[in-house]
């Protein structure tokens, strides 16, 4: 009963525009006090859930992405992709996907990507006759590659909650992320065939070589990060720090960073980290209430009466993530549902790695859907375009994302192939 009241209160607060973190904190605290818990428990729980070693990868991967942005890596990737694809029909569409793909190896969240890349690319595309909606749709949807491709913040969170290997989850995410890029390119291909107005930008080998040299060192960052993890030099958390150090050195070498820029970079990292971590912490408080009320066990028994078939279970999970992802922040959904879904998955023989990749991917779709779609808001505010237009532009690109979810469900081997090849 009390737990129903708590959920109702959360819903009301969310609707009233109380920030997600506080909409969880208030009712969670209310439940604990009403059920006779001690006065400090709620605060202890939120502090404890933040103090987890795997979660340290979050500020560090955010730092890495911020440094990469300030070091001008996105511009270098853009120039290179443009040199390669400029002559192709609809080239700027593919450029956008290519840049996101390149940047995704250095960034763990879609928000930073959308902010950094949207400002450069959308005006460029509009200049060459692409519609504003389409441009913002390409940029927004390809920004979703970043949280799927390692390093991935949602994957770090899933691995921490589900006690699975971050390295294996990272490896398993590579192919789905590449497939995303391919599928988005197919949508671009279909779209540009019906657009007579777009113009191309030209091509020269000299350009390709010049810009290619400029991305050589930045593209070594993923080698350090993934190579460091898979080669046994660092844990994922440590790899994030080492990758940041490398990016810092690059920034200095490229003369894009000075020592006096560092405070600003660290403050930017703090703001993004705190916004994410507050939601992790507050969702953990609600998770504690669920545990006390045995909600996971009840949900599990309901789920198991519905199905013991792994495929159907994964379909239900994907649907649940799609629905929850539209209204609640992805991180909060992970914190609340992973402890419930993991035991069921183990029970009916679903590989936790497959579950992780599927959950991350299907949740990321929600970043582009109203009412809570962080990427949507970021693009809308940085480009001064109404949220509705951004969504209408992005909607066609969501179809291939759903198809990839289906591929993962039907052919889990597609996800497991790489981690197994690497012996993870």
């Amino acid at each position: 009963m009390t737990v129903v009241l708590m959920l109702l209160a959360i819903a009301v607060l969310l609707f009233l525009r109380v920030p997600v973190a506080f909409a969880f904190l208030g009712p969670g605290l209310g439940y604990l006090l009403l059920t006779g818990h001690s006065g400090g428990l709620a605060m202890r729980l939120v502090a404890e859930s933040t103090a987890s070693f795997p979660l340290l990868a979050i500020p560090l991967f955010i730092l890495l992405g911020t440094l990469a942005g300030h070091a001008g890596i996105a511009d270098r990737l853009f120039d290179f992709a443009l040199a390669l694809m400029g002559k192709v029909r609809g080239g700027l569409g593919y450029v956008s996907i290519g840049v996101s793909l390149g940047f995704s190896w250095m960034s763990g969240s879609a928000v930073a990507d959308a902010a950094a890349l949207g400002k450069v690319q959308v005006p460029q595309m509009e200049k060459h006759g692409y519609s504003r909606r389409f441009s913002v749709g390409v940029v927004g949807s390809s920004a979703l590659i970043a949280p799927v491709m390692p390093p991935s913040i949602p994957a770090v969170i899933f691995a921490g909650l589900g006690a699975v290997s971050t390295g294996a989850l990272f490896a398993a995410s590579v192919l789905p992320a590449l497939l995303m890029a391919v599928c988005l390119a197919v949508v671009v291909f279909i779209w540009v065939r019906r657009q007579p107005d777009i113009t191309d930008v030209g091509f020269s080998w000299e350009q390709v070589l010049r810009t290619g040299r400029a991305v050589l060192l930045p593209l070594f960052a993923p080698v350090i990060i993934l190579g460091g993890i898979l080669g046994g030099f660092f844990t994922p958390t440590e790899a994030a720090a080492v990758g940041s150090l490398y990016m810092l050195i690059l920034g200095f070498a490229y003369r894009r960073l000075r020592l006096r820029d560092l405070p600003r970079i660290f403050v930017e990292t703090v703001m993004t980290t705190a916004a994410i971590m507050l939601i992790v912490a507050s969702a953990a408080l609600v998770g504690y209430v669920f545990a006390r009320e045995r909600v996971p066990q009840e949900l599990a028994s309901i789920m198991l009466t519905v199905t013991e078939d792994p495929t159907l279970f994964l379909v239900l999970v994907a649907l649940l993530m799609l629905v929850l992802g539209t209204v609640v922040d992805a991180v909060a959904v992970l914190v609340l549902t992973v402890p419930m879904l993991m035991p069921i998955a183990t029970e009916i023989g679903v590989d936790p790695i497959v579950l992780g990749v599927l959950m991350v991917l299907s949740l990321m779709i929600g970043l582009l859907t109203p009412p809570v779609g962080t990427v949507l808001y970021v693009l809308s505010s940085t480009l001064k375009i109404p949220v509705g237009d951004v969504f209408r532009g992005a909607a066609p690109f969501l179809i291939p994302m759903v198809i990839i979810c289906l591929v993962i469900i039907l052919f889990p081997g597609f996800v497991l192939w790489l981690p197994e090849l690497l012996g993870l």
Partner: protein
Amino acid sequence: GCSGGADDDTVELTLAHSYTQDQTAHTCGAETIRKEVEEADAGMSVEIYDSSQLGGDSDRIASVLSGDIDIDLQGASALAAVHEPMGVVDAAYAFEDAAHVSEYFRSGASDELTEAFKERSGINVLGAWSIGPRHFTANDPIRTPEDLDGLRIRFPGSTQYLLNARALGADATTVAYEEVYLSMQQGLVDGGENPLGNIASENMDEVQEYLSLSAHQQNSNLIVMGEIYDELSADRQEVLRDAVRAAEDRMIECVAESDARLVETFEAQKGFEVVDDVDVEAFRARADDWFREHLSGESLDVYTSIKESRP
């Protein structure tokens, strides 16, 4: 917390721990306590929250202190966060075998320690058991203290474990428990030391070549209860103590059984060799010398009280 009908004054006790539902500390330990308490029909019931659902070890100590959790299973080294000398219970080779842990806490030898602990924190120690001895795993066999030279062995990050590493002559590396498997697999650490149950549940046998049966530390669980224990009637306190004793006896059997079964499984396994001729005496003597030289005050008293409790 307390709840239930007002007229019959039923007490519902929360028991929390960090083990999964198939580990012995849950099946033979916590479940026995629950069953025994219920069968005693003393108006008490026990509700178990396993798998760290109510928080990790150190978080739950705070919850026992604040009364948010009634009964908890805690390692002695974790309880050192409240009262430092308690950590000595987890000292390397302090106990002779698993049964010795329960024996020590039943005997008067532990009174000074548990009373000091109670005075400092208000927490009662109802009893203790071992979830099994900790053994080394590595890619080399470890038979003597010298074999540890040059190996980076993962130890848990708390003070007593790091003291144990020094006492045994190991080069300790701390890696979060969540990252142990990967660290072993990638060679980030050369080895680790864990009870057999954890070695199996974390699949360390997949990523290590040798299991050396050093049995260098009894991995203790203390059954602790906050001030709610003092509020119970003497009869109910008796019921709880008896339930804990029954669970201790059950645990000693279960752990011996499951450890024997695990050793058998590991012996049959290719690529994971069981080393059963570890020079335990050499390790034991080294650790004993080290602790007697480096411990002082109350901690040394606890150490000698354990050693003398089974001469």
